[in-house]
């Protein structure tokens, strides 16, 4: 019996020690000098690692500590939201997608940047990258990298890329008929944010838009929206795009295109580097251009940029701004372009001869940025996009026809706007 009791005492002591260790763990961290904590999605944490190390070596009295978030945009957002909701935001700066800004600002999680950066903070940027940072007259975010939706095409299969939806379809059919590629065109069709990005480009190409003067999401009631959704469905029903596209996000589509399984791919600029890399079946055989559009209409590119925001709970806003300035500065951006193939936001870098030599796609990216279209800037964006994704997914998988589906999406968006208006007024 005594043996049993002694053993249970040991177990108790061990348990208490473990408990104490777990409780004191966070305290140990808090005792360090001024540290600016930054949450970034994993790819950007990797890309900035060298710069951060440089910064931390120089004697500035400020240390950067980067938290490497998940890879997927939505997973990073979930992580950031749960940290912020729990009120224990361990971060000072957040590298955010362009679509989060309005929501985070409305939730009261961000500090306006104007007092720190002045009214001209966005002036050095290319015009396309300026959108989506200033909301209700206040600056909430400073972009680090630009991102635009692009059409990748195979230079070994054609002389010039298609410029209209019909051309893309005809060209794909031809190449598939000749047995040169199993699929024509790959894109992102899973029910997630990427689908909204794909749609936005196409709907502009058909002469429409997502939002109108009547309000966000109201463009879905117009005929162009039905035409765009119908075209996406046609790609699947005609076998130009595999049915599996309804479960494709960026990695699946890129992986398949990289293996040489299609003539066209819709993706972001970062895909370029990956397609040229070792093991790619299409290395050296890829060109980029903007999305197809009906004759005479603009070739739109969905804007998706990443930028830093200062969190409201930051204990060291001044130091955080120093870090923000350094990381978004010209040196930093140049390095990201040179070493990682990302797209800068500073206008000057697009004309830097050394960089252009190294990254010949820069002028085209700038052109795409000038044609960039922004997703609705609303605190309720996540919901608006969800409404659209749900209906588009139903159209792509053949469950609904394009017209009624887009009408339903417009109706649901209108209802959301009305409800939110009531709530905001209450």
């Amino acid at each position, binding site marked *: 019996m005594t043996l049993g009791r002694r053993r249970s005492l040991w177990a108790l002591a061990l348990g208490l020690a473990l408990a104490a260790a777990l409780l004191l763990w966070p305290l140990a961290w808090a005792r360090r000098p001024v540290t600016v904590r930054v949450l970034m999605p994993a790819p950007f944490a990797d890309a900035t690692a060298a710069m951060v190390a440089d910064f931390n070596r120089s004697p500035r009295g400020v240390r950067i500590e980067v938290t490497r978030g998940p890879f997927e945009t939505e997973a990073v957002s*979930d992580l950031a939201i749960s940290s912020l909701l729990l009120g224990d935001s361990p971060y000072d700066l957040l590298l955010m997608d362009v679509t989060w800004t309005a929501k985070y600002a409305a939730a009261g999680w961000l500090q306006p940047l104007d007092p720190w950066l002045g009214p001209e903070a966005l002036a050095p940027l290319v015009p396309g990258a300026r959108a989506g940072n200033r909301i209700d007259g206040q600056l909430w975010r400073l972009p680090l990298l630009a991102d635009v939706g692009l059409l990748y095409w195979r230079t070994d299969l054609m002389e010039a890329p298609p410029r209209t939806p019909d051309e893309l379809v005809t060209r794909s059919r031809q190449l598939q008929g000749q047995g040169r590629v199993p699929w024509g065109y790959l894109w992102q069709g899973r029910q997630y944010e990427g689908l909204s990005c794909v749609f936005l480009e196409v709907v502009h190409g058909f002469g429409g838009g997502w939002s109108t003067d009547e309000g966000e999401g109201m463009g879905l009631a117009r005929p162009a929206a039905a035409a765009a959704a119908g075209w996406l469905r046609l790609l699947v029903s005609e076998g130009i795009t595999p049915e599996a596209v*309804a479960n494709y996000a960026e990695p699946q589509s890129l992986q398949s295109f990289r293996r040489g399984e299609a003539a066209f791919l819709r993706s972001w600029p970062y895909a370029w580097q990956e397609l040229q890399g070792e093991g790619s079946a299409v290395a050296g055989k890829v060109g980029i251009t903007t999305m197809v559009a009906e004759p005479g209409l603009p070739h739109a590119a969905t804007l998706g940029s990443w930028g830093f925001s200062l969190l409201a709970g930051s204990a060291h806003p001044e130091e955080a701004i120093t870090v923000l300035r350094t990381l978004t500065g010209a040196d930093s951006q140049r390095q990201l372009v040179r070493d990682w193939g990302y797209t800068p936001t500073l206008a000057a870098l697009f004309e830097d001869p050394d960089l252009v030599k190294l990254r010949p796609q820069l002028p085209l990216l700038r052109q795409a940025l000038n044609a960039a279209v922004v997703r609705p800037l609303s605190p309720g964006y996540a919901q608006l996009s969800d409404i659209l994704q749900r209906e588009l997914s139903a159209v792509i998988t053949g469950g609904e026809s394009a017209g009624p589906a887009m009408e339903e999406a417009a109706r649901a968006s209108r209802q959301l706007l009305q409800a939110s208006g009531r709530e905001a007024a209450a």
Partner: protein
Amino acid sequence: MRLRALLLMAPALLLLLAVFAWPMLEYAWLSLHAQSVFTGLEPVPVGLANWQRLLGDGRFWQDAGQTLRFAGVSVGLELVLGLGIALLLHQNWRGRGVVRSLSLLPWALPNTVMALGWRWIFDDPNGPINALLGGLGLATLPFLASPQLAWIATVVADVWKTTPFVALLLLAGLQMIPADLYDAFALEGGTPWQALRRITLPLLRPYIFIVLLFRLAQALGVFDLIAVLTGGGPASSTESLAVYAYLNAMRFLDFGYSATVMLGMFLLLLAGSALLLLLPRGQEVRS
């Protein structure tokens, strides 16, 4: 004496009230408020607006239907398969102890672990099922890209995981049935099939009832599996009510409505269990 009993029970009962009863009160309060990005995450009283929205929310009712269909089909399949496995494990053969514990493994794993595995198994075109179909010269199936197939995929994954649990409970029931009942029945010339229908099933009824109770409630709250396997897509065809409530809270930051969705789901469950309890229950088990 009574006081001491209450004292012994108090800590547990207090924690139970905090974990189960308090949330329902919180939801009732929240459902009468708007608390969203549009109110700066502050609660603002709005009367019955959330409930009005719920009644007119096609997605809520669609998800309710889908959740019910998912639960009904999965639990039905689990009962049939589980009964078969239980009958198999009830026979006398060497090594059945090992087989019993090995077949329990799917039940013991976290949902998210194998949900990730199923994503790969159902992959189009590289997953093993499609590799097999391709090898046989057949067309691949877009499992997670078609609303019907994706729904089937979620059912398969759920049946795989929870059938062992069902089988085990039914096996416990089988072991309570005296063997001489079967012997007597066989002497009178009854076939094994008749024995199953006339002896086994009637005597198993209380166990089947317990299985139904536990499994239906769990399946109606399905969340982990769907969150990882399909995320609710495509075309929201696999979205369950719990996933919808989660989306409203964590993605849309609409806490008032999320609470309303959950309370609505709770009320539906309450109505459902009332129905289930009114069904004839067979003879009680001796306790």
